[in-house]
């Protein structure tokens, strides 16, 4: 097989692979939301409710009790 031909096949299959990956990712995002496993949209509120004493959308479990002080 000539190099040119090989490049052609490589480009074709790479494109198909990337398209499948991308659509796969979109399906994964929507499916996990539909199944109730994740709620992605709630994270959008992080920017809006960003006072230091606001309740975190998801608390960082690693943070020490002392550090939690600011959150009411």
């Amino acid at each position: 097989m000539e190099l040119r031909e090989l490049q052609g096949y490589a480009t074709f299959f790479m494109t198909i692979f990337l398209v499948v990956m991308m659509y796969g990712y979109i399906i994964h995002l929507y499916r996990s939301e539909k199944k109730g496993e994740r709620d992605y949209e709630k994270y959008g509120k992080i920017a809006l409710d960003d006072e230091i004493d606001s309740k975190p959308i998801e608390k960082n479990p690693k943070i020490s009790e002392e550090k939690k002080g600011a959150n009411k």
Partner: protein
Amino acid sequence: MQSNAALEYDYSVAKLFTFTTILFGIIGMLVGTLIAAQLAFPELNYLIGEYGTFSRLRPLHTDVVIYGFMLSGIWATFYYVGQRVLKVSMAESKFLMFMGKFHFYLYFVGALIAVITLLLGITQSKEYAEFEWPIDIVVVLIWVSWGISLFGLIGIRREKSLYISLWYYIAAFLGVAMLYLFNNMAVPTYFVSGGIGSVLHSVSMYSGTNDALVQWWFGHNAVGFVFTVAIIAQIYYFLPKESGQAVYSYKLSLLSFWGLMFVYLWAGSHHLIWSTVPDWMQTMGSIFSVVLILPSWGSAINMLLTMKGEWNQLTENPLIKLMVLASTFYMLSTIEGPIQSIKSVNAIAHFTDWIPGHVHDGVLGWVGFMTMAALYHMAPRIFKREIYSKKLIDVQFWIQTTGIVLYFTSMWIAGITQGMMWRAVDEYGNLMYSFIDTVAILHPYYTIRTVSAVLYFTGFLIFAYNMVKTMTVSKEISQEPTNRTPMAA
């Protein structure tokens, strides 16, 4: 649980970077205006001897606006947004506070040395990577200090999930770190030659075509990870916050982010189309550039849709106007770039003025507007005073928008004229025009560009004036605004 009422976000580092954003913006854009004028009126090259020539000033313009103005803006916003979306104050860690200030002062000293060396003509002659090896080492230290601040802050966060903006700040950090290191691999000649020549001089570890490939892998991406990625970080925070609307689709932001991360790094070879690099690599750069439309427009459309049902804010709030137009210019720039990367279009566009035209609708419209809107949003929160004048923002907006439109339209015409003239042949296959013919015919467009540069720079001075007045004499505010930035009429 103990309640600590005194805990507040600490903006001291954000303030310092705000000052340098304004300072370097003025210097970089002033030099840009001068060199635009020099292209139209060459006698302006001889105002201050060797220090005022186009060749000396051009790298100064690009490096000061990119690494001075833009990076300062990126870091001013990072030290503001980072704390807020992680819900942790820098005041809670003495070490992070020290690192933040160390980061700033090292950066400021490094930037001043860089400016001086460029003026002296000390350069390794790589576009956007002009700094010689000792400054490169300082750059690495500056970058590592940012990394410590970035990951240190993440390490003590209260909010478990990292907000979209942070993914982009992290990507900017990692992307530029990798690209800068690889592209600046150089051998200091003084040490390997046993003491011949200047201590500052070095040669690249790559040669010929390989050097060009590494350079444009860097040139496209390092700048892209500053121009694009770190500015997206800003708009994902400031537009929702200023408008009070949560981002339209978090899922779309995820898709756009991973799409951009994967595709961006492969597109750099489009700078070398029709050059001596392998043909497959040119094709790859071209294809990935076209694919890049998808994640770029994904972010831009997500921003525009965030304003859904709230478009009245566009007329009421000049900051929303700046950000929406920034997003629109991002769309224009990210469709124009892929078009220029198509091989047949590139045959005309390559080496012409259409290229700086493309760069400037991106940087003036997208980066400039977004950075200024971000600083305007931050100002009342960090200086505890309302914006000095809403009217001045409006005036600035229209002056600068006119400037941008004049810039890219004149360069479209100039570039395509240039490209067509260079290729034109008579019936015997002889070139119809000499180089100087193109220079003569482009003079009016270069003059228009100078006018556009004066307009944009004037707008920036208005911005600087408005910011200084906000910091010093504007009405004090007792409570931090939630969304819309307070401003005097």
